């Protein structure tokens, strides 16, 4: 007898929960047994009794939280069925960051896919997304508005290289999330033939080393020395987004502030952050890929976890798909979450 989807997966304050297997997926609070889709801090938290995730995600969590981030850990092999209680789970690449996986849960002939975060655009630093046909597809909607259509990353990287060529005396500082985006930007630069050293903010170092040890070729990536900053005119430097506007960035020669993010598609956002060279490079699906993926899974039912849920739910309904927003709290990628809207700022902008 086919199981109802809500018997297989429910919502608890900790996050999505599978009662038939007694585990949570990407829980936001400590639980007994957690299945983790990928290493971003909003999905992978420390303090669980046991963690099941891909080998890479387990290693990433150890780098970020220390070896003892969970009571016990188990590496999930890709594309293999794992029996947990009354359900079968399977990890399949999600194309989001190194080690990221969708988790399929099957019981009584019903299959639910929790996609975590995912993208369809090519990424030299991780395995590509694989479509998993399912009955219920659980998706994010970080960029779930039709204005978000990510351009070809090659053109974005070319913008950066053109600027370096035109302003060879200025330091180009690229803000990028420490896990995934930073390494993808570096890999894209290498693909375009950039062979000079790419300098790293200290906070990027360990994860970048990890990517290299996993066989992602990133070339020479020295850490920026404390006294060296003033002499890096013409160099490309990668740092966490928060460092872009910090005291740290002031010491570089006439810096060009660049930011690699899907949010850079909207001009007001880029301006609000004082960005001078926005690079629209995202590790999330854009609108077209969210919609396309939903159709490709063949799911008749769609749950939307976080982001612009209303627009995506509306779109599903116009396609005759059952859809509901989960309004899940606590997700949003390490700063790629929405900044709170401030009426004060809006007022200032309209003032003469």
């Amino acid at each position, binding site marked *: 007898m086919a199981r109802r989807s809500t018997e297989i997966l429910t919502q608890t304050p900790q996050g999505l929960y599978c009662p038939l297997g007694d585990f949570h997926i990407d829980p936001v609070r400590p639980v007994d047994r957690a299945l983790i889709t990928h290493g971003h801090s909003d999905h992978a938290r420390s303090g669980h009794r046991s963690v099941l995730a891909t080998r890479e995600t387990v290693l990433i969590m150890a780098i970020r939280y220390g070896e003892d981030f969970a009571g016990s850990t188990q590496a999930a092999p890709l594309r293999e069925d794992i029996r947990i209680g009354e359900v079968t789970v399977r990890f399949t690449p999600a194309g989001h960051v190194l080690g990221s996986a969708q988790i399929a849960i099957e019981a009584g002939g019903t299959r639910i896919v929790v996609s975590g975060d995912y993208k369809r655009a090519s990424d030299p630093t991780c395995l590509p997304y694989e479509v998993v046909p399912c009955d219920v597809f659980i998706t994010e909607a970080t960029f779930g*508005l*039709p*204005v*978000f*259509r990510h*351009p070809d990353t090659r053109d974005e990287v070319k*913008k950066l290289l053109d*600027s370096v060529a*035109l*302003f060879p005396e200025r330091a180009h500082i690229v803000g990028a999330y420490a896990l995934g985006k930073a390494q993808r930007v570096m890999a894209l630069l290498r693909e375009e033939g950039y062979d000079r050293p790419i300098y790293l903010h200290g906070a990027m170092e360990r994860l970048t080393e990890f990517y290299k040890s996993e066989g992602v070729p990133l070339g020479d990536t020295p850490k920026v020395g404390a006294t060296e900053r003033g002499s890096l005119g013409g160099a490309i430097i990668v740092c966490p987004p928060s460092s872009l*506007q*910090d*005291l740290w*960035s*002031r010491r570089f020669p*006439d810096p060009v*502030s660049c930011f690699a993010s899907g949010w850079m*598609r*909207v*001009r*007001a956002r*880029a*301006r*609000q*952050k*004082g*960005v*001078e*060279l*926005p690079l629209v490079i995202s590790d999330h699906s854009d*609108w*077209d*890929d969210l*919609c*396309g993926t939903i*159709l*490709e899974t*063949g799911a008749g039912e769609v749950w939307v976890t976080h982001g*612009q849920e*209303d*627009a995506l739910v*509306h*779109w599903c309904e*116009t396609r005759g798909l059952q859809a509901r927003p989960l309004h899940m709290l606590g997700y949003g990628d390490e700063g790629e979450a929405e*900044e*709170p809207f*401030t009426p*004060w*700022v809006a*007022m*200032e902008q*309209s*003032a*003469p």
Partner: protein
Amino acid sequence: MNRFAALLDRLAYEPRRNAKLRLLVDYFSHTPDPDRGYALAALTGSLMFKEAKAGLIRGLVEERTDPFLFRMSYNYVGDLAETVALIWPGPDGDIRSTDGGPAPVGHNHPPLHVPTLTEVVETLATASKSDLPARIAAWLDALDETGRWALLKLITRELRVGVSARLAKTAVAQLGSFEPDEVELIWHGLAAPYEELFAWAEARGPKPESNNPAPFRPPMLSHPLEDEDFTKLNAGDFVGEWKWDGIRLQAVAGLASDGRAVRRIYSRTGEDVSRAFPDLVEALTFEGAIDGELLIVRDGRVQSFNVLQQRLNRKAVTPKLIADFPVHLRVYDILTENGQDLRDLSFAQRRKRLEALVTRLDDPRIELSAIVPFSSWEDLAAARTDPDSVGAGLDADAIEGCMIKRADSPYLPGRPKGYWYKWKRDPYLVDAVMMYGQRGHGKRSSFYSDYTFGVWRDGPDGEELVPVGKAYHGFTDEELGRLDRYVRNHTVNRFGPVREVEYGKDKGLVLEVAFEGLQRSTRHKSGVAMRFPRISRIRWDKPAGEADRIETLEKILKRGEKEIHPLKDSQSKGPPP
């Protein structure tokens, strides 16, 4: 179009003037004619076509998108052109793959033709109104997001990328390694796509002739007078004039080759603004070029800048507007007359020619700017503080200081040293309390460099601070460092790039703010908006409780309003003088 779009995209985010200049020079040197010429025309506001209305664009996008999704997107993005540029569906409909597979490869779309900037400009100039929507839609289909954004901004005439006409011309000058003023001098004889100008800049052709009978000539500008100048300068070498709080204009009249009179009014930067002042154009019944200040004069009395602004703000120049806000040119120099270039003459000689011309014209719309008599700097200081005392009479309120000019100075373009000085009236000062700090732009993006400040007023729970303005200059780099640290160390709240700092009767930082004037404003909580506010001093020593109250500003405001409604005011105070 893609190249031009990429340029605009980059310019829109780049705050530094020199970097903008380099982007422009790079574009001009790598883009062929006639595209670069039309780009120059777009950036200098010289393109001739009827703009597309927002309603047309909206109509096009509404035919192609889900109304709910469009509304959500528009609310999110906040700008119509940008929303349309981003949401415009690709050739396959609203998503890349609608049939379950990756984007279909074998789909035979006719290849889309990406328009050049030249095609866009030429089509807009010639296409009939009924053709326009289909043309625009086809372009939007062919362009990418940045291309669509640039196209929409161009055709709706909302191209605001922080590039002045002057900067664009400077870029062309740099291409040819000549002075920007050389471009300025021939500019009004040229037309898009400026092929002969670029040929000259690239040393492939001769300098284009200016065959404009009423060309703009770069104005002569002054230096602010510094304290130490008084010991160096000899009062006897100089002539004094009032510095008017108006708009500097150049009025030029000449004869075309067919004998027709050509009359033009230019802004200080060479923009042709004749259309805004038909009443003044009418008065240019001479042949030559004169330099002066645009003022509103009612019943023989010069009105304040606030009043002038009311005329400038209006788009449509109606007979009523002209009658309510009569413009006058208060002239102080003459550059040419009857085909003779007077710029090499001395100021004193030019002044004689100017006086003769104004007498001959005998038109109340063109009046001489009076000479301020003085024999020592102390005399002039007194005149500057109290213009009325030396006969400025009813005009005293529209005077913002003095100009002093060497009697022997030729008329030189730009800001030559040692000839003309301005000595402004002291600004208004108010002691206010810092309330918010905001991150700056460009070089200052890592500093909290924009400060919102408030003054005290009575609130429901006793005295409270109400924000009255925002300033982001007036301090040294070293002071900026201290202010930045102050904001960081006294933050009580964060809103994106804005931090609220600690303030109250016994805590907070007092800023002495200098400003040029006040206007009523419904957009500000306090009801007032400041003109050119800047930080004149940081009062680390002063307790916040001793900062000024809103009444101080109200008083200044009332003084200004007397000038806007002189009749209303005079009724309450007896007959007009």
